[in-house]
């Protein structure tokens, strides 16, 4: 019987119901869109923030007492420890592999260049390289300095990692000093060993890299006799903000706490996972960048929650207006059903069924619109699509029903107060 009453009552008052449903759709679509974005935000904002640089530096174990100036290790090769190049792919195989946005290996040494034999740092690295990742669904990954320092710009050409030619990119300060331009050749003297590199581009970074010469990793390995070795890896990872739990000493954690910590993309847990796969390495989080990223994500999440709350409140107000009008129109009907003996809970159930129907319809349509809205937000703000998470549908519907219930509470209470004697008299 409720079904019949509900169907017919909705049909006959469809304008009011549509208004209420529209109010719910507006709230639900915003909730659906923002929840969708919220669930993606760590990855999206993490990726955005990765443009501010790597947040983890991986160094050989015990390398912290070595002589390092301007990012270059001045210890002799015999004293210095190195990481293995053939283990680099493992960084994309850790538990949080999808959060590794990029990494690049470095091998630096001091060389003499130019007619005045000036000391300059020569750094070998990967620029934009596709590496195979065995036994993973994604099969390969794009790595290199371009993935961790996208703000670097080059006048001329980038070095092609695959071709392995004797080429160099000069930092703009070095180029100015040597009066070199793209197309020139630069002579490199490493402990009396000479090589000539063709300058393909001039690098602008706004940092100390402008005082260095960059070339293929293999070129520096060949020059220094350190085949298959790298001195440092910079990693850019999407992380979750460090909370109090993240700061707990892991040696004091229970097994359950450790699993929770390990399975959360804190910068410290990702760093540990890198250490686990790179032999004899120390993975050091760059705290300032990590905490700036974390705080930024926290603030964006808070802002989104506030917007969602405002959307819920506005939507509930819309529903309340529509339901109040609807109940005013139905005063006589309520008076009749009270007069023929309806119980209080039967009257509540009658309205709640309508409220739930409005909530479910509004929630489903709102969810659909929200998915579209999330994509618009994703494209406008993050320049990428937002992954659809199935959990958003039930969440949206539950919140939509909640909105209609909150919005209908006062009108339903007023309906229960209707005195049949008065309304049936036509007053």
């Amino acid at each position, binding site marked *: *019987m*409720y079904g*019949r*009453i509900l169907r*017919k*009552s909705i*049909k*006959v008052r469809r304008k009011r119901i549509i208004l209420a449903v529209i109010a719910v759709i507006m709230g639900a679509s915003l909730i659906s869109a923002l929840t969708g974005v919220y669930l993606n935000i760590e990855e999206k904002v993490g990726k955005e923030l990765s443009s501010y640089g790597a947040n983890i530096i991986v160094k050989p174990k015990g390398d912290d007492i070595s002589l390092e100036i301007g990012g270059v290790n001045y210890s002799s090769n015999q004293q210095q420890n190195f990481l293995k190049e053939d283990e680099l792919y493992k960084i994309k195989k850790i538990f949080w592999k999808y959060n590794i946005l990029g990494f690049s290996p470095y091998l630096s040494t001091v060389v003499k260049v130019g007619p005045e034999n000036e000391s300059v740092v020569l750094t070998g690295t990967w620029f934009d390289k596709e590496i195979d990742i065995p036994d993973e669904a994604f099969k390969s990954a794009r790595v290199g300095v371009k993935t961790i320092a996208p703000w670097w710009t080059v006048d001329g050409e980038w070095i092609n990692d695959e071709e392995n030619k004797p080429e160099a990119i000069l930092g703009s300060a070095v180029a100015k000093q040597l009066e070199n331009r793209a197309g020139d050749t630069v002579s490199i003297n490493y402990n009396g060993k000479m090589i000539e590199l063709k300058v393909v581009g001039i690098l602008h970074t706004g940092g100390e890299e402008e005082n260095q010469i960059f070339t293929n990793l293999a070129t520096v390995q060949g020059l220094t006799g350190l085949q298959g070795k790298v001195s440092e890896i910079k990693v850019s990872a999407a992380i979750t903000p460090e909370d109090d739990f993240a700061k707990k000493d892991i040696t004091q954690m229970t097994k359950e706490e450790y699993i929770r910590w390990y399975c959360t993309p804190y910068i410290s847990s990702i760093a540990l996972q890198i250490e686990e796969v790179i032999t004899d390495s120390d993975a050091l989080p760059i705290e300032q960048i990590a905490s700036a990223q974390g705080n930024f994500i926290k603030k964006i999440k808070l802002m989104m929650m506030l917007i969602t709350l405002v959307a819920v409140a506005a939507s509930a107000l819309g529903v309340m207006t529509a339901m109040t009008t609807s109940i005013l129109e139905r005063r*006589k*009907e309520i*008076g*009749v*059903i*009270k*007069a*023929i*003996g*309806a*119980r*209080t809970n*039967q009257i509540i159930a009658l309205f709640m069924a309508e409220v739930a129907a409005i909530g479910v319809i509004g929630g489903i349509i709102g969810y659909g619109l929200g998915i579209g809205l999330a994509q618009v937000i994703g494209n406008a703000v993050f320049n990428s699509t937002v992954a659809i998470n199935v959990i958003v549908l039930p969440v949206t519907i539950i919140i939509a029903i909640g909105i209609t219930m909150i919005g209908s509470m006062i009108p339903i209470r007023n309906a229960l107060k209707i005195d*049949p*004697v008065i309304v*049936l*008299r*036509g007053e």
Partner: protein
Amino acid sequence: MEKNNIITTMNLSKCYNGKTLVLDNLNIAIKKGEWANIMGPSGSGKTTLLNILSCLDRPTDGSVIINGTEVTRLSQDEMAAFRRENIGLVFQQYHLIPYLTALENVMLAQHFHSMVDEKEAKDTLELVGLGHRLDHIPAHLSGGEQQRVSIARALINQPAIILADEPTGNLDRANGKIILDLFKKLHKKGHTIVIVTHDPEIGTMGDRLIRLMDGRTVNEKVTAL
């Protein structure tokens, strides 16, 4: 108090806003199976009395015993339950749910009472001569037909008493006659009927005529059917 009285009011008073006395120390007794008509000029308190007997309103003073229950002591929900079980209401304006069919309007009363029984609802509409109008909404029924649906709705839960407020007030003579014939039929079957009316013709029907004036009974007389 006589044992076979189904409705008894004792010193019943109703006062609005502490000053307007609508019912003044009213004592009425209606026997089981009796048809009593209540007449009186506007403002004499007939509708107020009917509302109190219907358990829709409460008196300011006095007591009302219906079917052995002192109804003035009941809570709001208990009054609704009592009404559901014991009283069938027929209104001058019919008060049908406009978007439900004749059959659904009758079934609605079943729904709020206990369980919906479509066959029983159809039979009751047959009884009031509307077997052919089951699926019509009120707007597609004449006034007389709407009132007959309203009577079927009042009868569906087999109440002990049928209370009607100006049941023919909005009807032409022909339709009014159909409704009154229906009441006669119900009375013969043993229903207790109380009708509030302005219509002197109805006043001549039934077992008793209770005249009200300024909230009191005057010249009560027994009529013959």
